[in-house]
């Protein structure tokens, strides 16, 4: 319905302003098709409302003349109710709208008459191409809108050479012009197409970021329930020679050992983690060895492995004699014998 009316309008406007328009026709005509070709494909799916009317125009190979004819034919069939509505709107827009329509028509006429053979054939092809694809026409309406807008805003004109060739399909545009209401609705539609996605993605990114930050927050708990890595274990005199103190194992996971290693009388702290698969061995006083319950690895009092599958000695942790005469264990430091780290003075306290 609306369509027919709009065509009529176009014709009216064209008749009225044909003289005016012809002078300006050159520029707008050039730029509009360029826009149109770009937009046609993008906006096709959206404008379903305007599609039905299209085929009549689209089906016709010769662009301007055909469209005009079709429009005239359609105008006769147009209903009254629809007539009244569009009539008002165009009027308000008259300044820009009329001009541009006139321009388009003028351009079309110019092409039909003065255009070279090649141009015509190109136009023909275009038109037929548009006719082949039923959906194509639908896309044209919006593009006109855009074109008009672009003209009004005085956007720079895109490529001229190509634009000329692509001109013929323009005739289909008249339809979109129909009403300003449509235009508004289209703006809303446009917004619906673009903004929700943008909105959704923004929401999604924000939520993801918040979740990531929330997880990262767990790395910095308010309260640390694990024991400190540095702690005092009493004076050296608490650890008689040849003994393994297991009293720190349950809380801190270390044994305090006072024994001889490589000719030195030492106190050192062994980590109670088996070097095979990480179980916790037990100190067996009667056998004088650490024995792992999982796979049977055994370690001497020095921490050196001698039985079972453990491939390397138990690890020492840092120990030092603090200024107040107490032994201080530092679990954040590890000393591995197979890497030659047991010579490090921080791994032992020498008792003279």
């Amino acid at each position, binding site marked *: 319905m609306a369509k027919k009316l709009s065509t009529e309008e176009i014709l009216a406007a064209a008749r009225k302003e044909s003289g005016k328009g012809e002078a300006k026709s050159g520029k707008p005509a050039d730029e509009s098709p360029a826009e149109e070709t770009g937009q046609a494909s993008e906006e096709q799916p959206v404008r379903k409302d305007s599609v039905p009317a299209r085929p009549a125009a689209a089906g016709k190979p010769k662009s301007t003349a055909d469209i005009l004819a079709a429009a005239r034919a359609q105008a006769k069939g147009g209903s009254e109710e629809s007539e009244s509505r569009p009539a008002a709107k165009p009027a308000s827009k008259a300044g820009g709208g009329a001009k541009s329509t006139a321009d388009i028509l003028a351009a079309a006429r110019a092409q039909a008459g003065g255009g070279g053979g090649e141009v015509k054939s190109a136009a023909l092809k275009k038109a037929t191409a548009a006719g082949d694809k039923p959906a194509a026409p639908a896309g044209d309406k919006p593009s006109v809108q855009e074109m008009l807008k672009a003209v009004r805003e005085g956007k720079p004109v895109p490529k001229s050479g190509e634009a000329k060739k692509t001109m013929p399909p323009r005739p289909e545009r008249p339809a979109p012009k129909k009403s300003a209401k449509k235009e508004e609705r289209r703006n809303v539609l446009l917004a619906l197409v673009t903004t929700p996605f943008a909105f959704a993605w923004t929401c999604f990114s924000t939520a993801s970021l918040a979740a990531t930050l929330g997880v990262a927050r767990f790395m910095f708990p308010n309260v640390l329930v694990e024991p400190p890595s540095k702690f005092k274990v009493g004076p050296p005199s608490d650890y008689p020679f040849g003994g393994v103190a297991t009293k720190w*194992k*349950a809380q801190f996971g270390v044994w305090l050992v006072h024994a001889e290693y490589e000719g030195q009388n030492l106190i050192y702290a062994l980590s109670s983690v088996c070097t095979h*698969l990480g179980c916790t061995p037990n100190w067996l006083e*009667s056998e004088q060895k650490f024995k792992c*319950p999982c796979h*049977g690895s055994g370690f001497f009092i020095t921490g050196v492995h001698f039985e*079972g599958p453990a*491939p390397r000695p138990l690890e020492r942790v840092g120990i030092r004699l603090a200024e107040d005469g107490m032994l201080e264990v530092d679990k954040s430091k590890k000393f591995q014998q197979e890497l030659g780290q047991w010579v490090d003075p921080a791994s032992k306290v020498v008792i003279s």
Partner: protein
Amino acid sequence: MHSHPDLTSSVIQGLGAFYLVLFLMNAIYTYFSFKKGGHSKFLERLTGQEIPAAAMWALYSAFLLMIAVAHLTSTSSPNAFLFKLPEWVKYYVDVIVADPVSFSVLSVVLFALMILLREWWVKPVVAWILLNVSVIALGLSMTDWDFRQIVGKPDNVPIVAMLFIVGFFTWLYFRRAIENDKRIDEGRDVFEKEDNEKILVWPDLVYTELMCMVILTVILVAWGILLHAPLEEPGSAVKTPNPSKAPWYFLGLQEMLVYYDPWLAGVVFPSVILVGLMAIPYIDFNKGGNGYYSFKERWFAISTFLFGFLPLWVAMIILGTFLRGPNWNMFGPFEYWDVHKLEVLYNVNLSEYFWLYSPEWTPWVGAMPVAPPDASLPQQARIIFLREAPGFIAVIVYLAVLPPLMAMTLFRTYFLRMGFLRFMVFSNLLLMMLALPIKMVLRWAFNLKYIIAIPEWFINV
């Protein structure tokens, strides 16, 4: 050592029920034996008379009934109860089973006997007698406190059931395979071809499946109600239960971890096992036994698979479940789990064996190369490779030189039929499977810890 009573009234009552079930089983067997008729050749030779086999079974069942009644009605002191395992039997079983060497020799010997004596033990009578012997042995062993502690643990009940189920299905396979082997020898059709009557999926198969589902669900529910799953103490990062055991089906892997480095036994070998099992259809060129049971036509494939499954997987589960105790020491089934049991072990790496240096006795061997503490990585690498050269050579020879040798000698026909690539995959899978028992023997016989030991880089083989 411990003051727990071997026998209590409740144990005796329970065993009474146990023998009652065995009696019922044998009573049913007697009935079928009677229906079938036949004489026992063994008894005929013994007595010179024809005695029906069913009479024998009736006698045996009656004996079991009396035993059951004796258990169920026993009111005197449990200590005076006589029907229990003699101490000397316990002692010898412990001595044999608690030693890894004799345990694995025993499992391999049993495996070999299973293959060699297959035509004897698949007879229903023999199988039934074997089942009776094993059940009575289990019942008698239950009179021992330590045995009850291990076998009667709710955790371990499914493993006992599994052993009987594995036994049954192995028997079933051999029974059908041997029947087909006989048929093939006689030039007859195999059983599956002769008995090719087809039945419908619906309702026959689906109905059977439904019944299995229902029965198994009932068993699971009853089991869940009757035997309470044991909960251990709350977990702690600094306390590991002693002994600490993997789920029963992974005990073979845990046993492997005793002999191999974690990344090898925990990652590489399990993957090789899975991939290797998947590869079997692709490396198998033998069309024999396709769609029917047969041992003779596939003796190598069947024996290899069963070797991997029975001595190397099921036997390891038995070992891990029943014989590994505190500190991962080995204990006999009737032995008290003493945390302080002393096992003298001192494991040595191959490189330490190789670089045995003493200026007087072995001057031709240098001292073991040791990287200086400030060595750069290439320097360190050079020294490590030199130190572990014997191990590297051994491993390369094992995995790269042995396959061609096998292709030229023992597996000549296999190589010709398989082609190069398939044979290489096959031989390497076979060698990797055999690597486990080989390493175990090396550990027990020579206290060998690792063939290649690079603790610096956490790589050991």
